[in-house]
């Protein structure tokens, strides 16, 4: 009798290309993508704090970076990422508590997460741009 090697012939998961597109998988991918984006956002936050600690000149440079077109796009992206990751994180906590697993629950929760994170981002930037005007 030879040694069996069950691991080699087993199907591996997940093969993304065999799945029909679904909103749930997009939200799942987006959770990870926003998480990685927020890692770089956290690095930028530390740089900003270092600029505050370094003094008015470094702070002025940091603020200039933040108000440049690239800085503004990044800040917008990070704000949406934070709100999305926060809302979807709460969705994950609901799953961890053992509920929200029905097909209807998965979709309803997903749409609520998207709506709330878009709303929070819109309110944040409305206040920011309204205050600057």
């Amino acid at each position, binding site marked *: 009798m030879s040694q069996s090697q069950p691991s080699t012939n087993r199907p591996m998961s997940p093969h993304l290309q065999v799945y029909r597109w679904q909103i749930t998988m997009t939200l799942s991918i987006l959770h990870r993508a926003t998480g*990685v984006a927020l890692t770089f956002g956290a690095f930028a936050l530390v740089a900003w704090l270092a600029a*505050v*600690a370094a003094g008015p000149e470094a702070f002025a440079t940091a603020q200039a970076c933040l108000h440049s077109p690239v800085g503004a796009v990044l800040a917008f992206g990070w704000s949406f990422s934070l709100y999305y990751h926060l809302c979807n994180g709460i969705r994950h906590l609901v799953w961890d508590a053992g509920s929200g697993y029905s097909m209807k629950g998965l979709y309803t929760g997903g749409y609520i997460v998207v709506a709330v994170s878009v709303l929070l981002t819109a309110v944040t930037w409305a206040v920011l741009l309204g205050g600057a005007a």
Partner: protein
Amino acid sequence: MSMQSPLSRAKGLGSAKEGLHHWIVQRFTGIALVPLSLWFMWAMVCLAGAEHAEVVAWMKSPANAVSLCLFVGVALYHSALGVQVVLEDYISHEGFRMVKMIGQKFVHYFLAALGIFCVLQVAFGA
């Protein structure tokens, strides 16, 4: 010679007893970040367009300084846990993965220490 299949033998060994801690701490830090990150966004909106002196005055308030230190520390810890999972998923070469894993932890803990130090320097500064 054992009649067990390799899979059955591996199952009998149980887990490495490490994953549960990672899972729970990821949730704990996530729960802590719900109020902390909402507070942080609110604070950033309030501070938008502020002068250096205003930001310094804001950071000298004990409530703000403590919240900011907590936010920086917990967010970077949560980030380190998340990046660890991403690296585990996408890097198959074990040695390279280990190097990246140790590297990302060092970067996260260094930045957490630096961020908290900067807040304290401003808070306790003249």
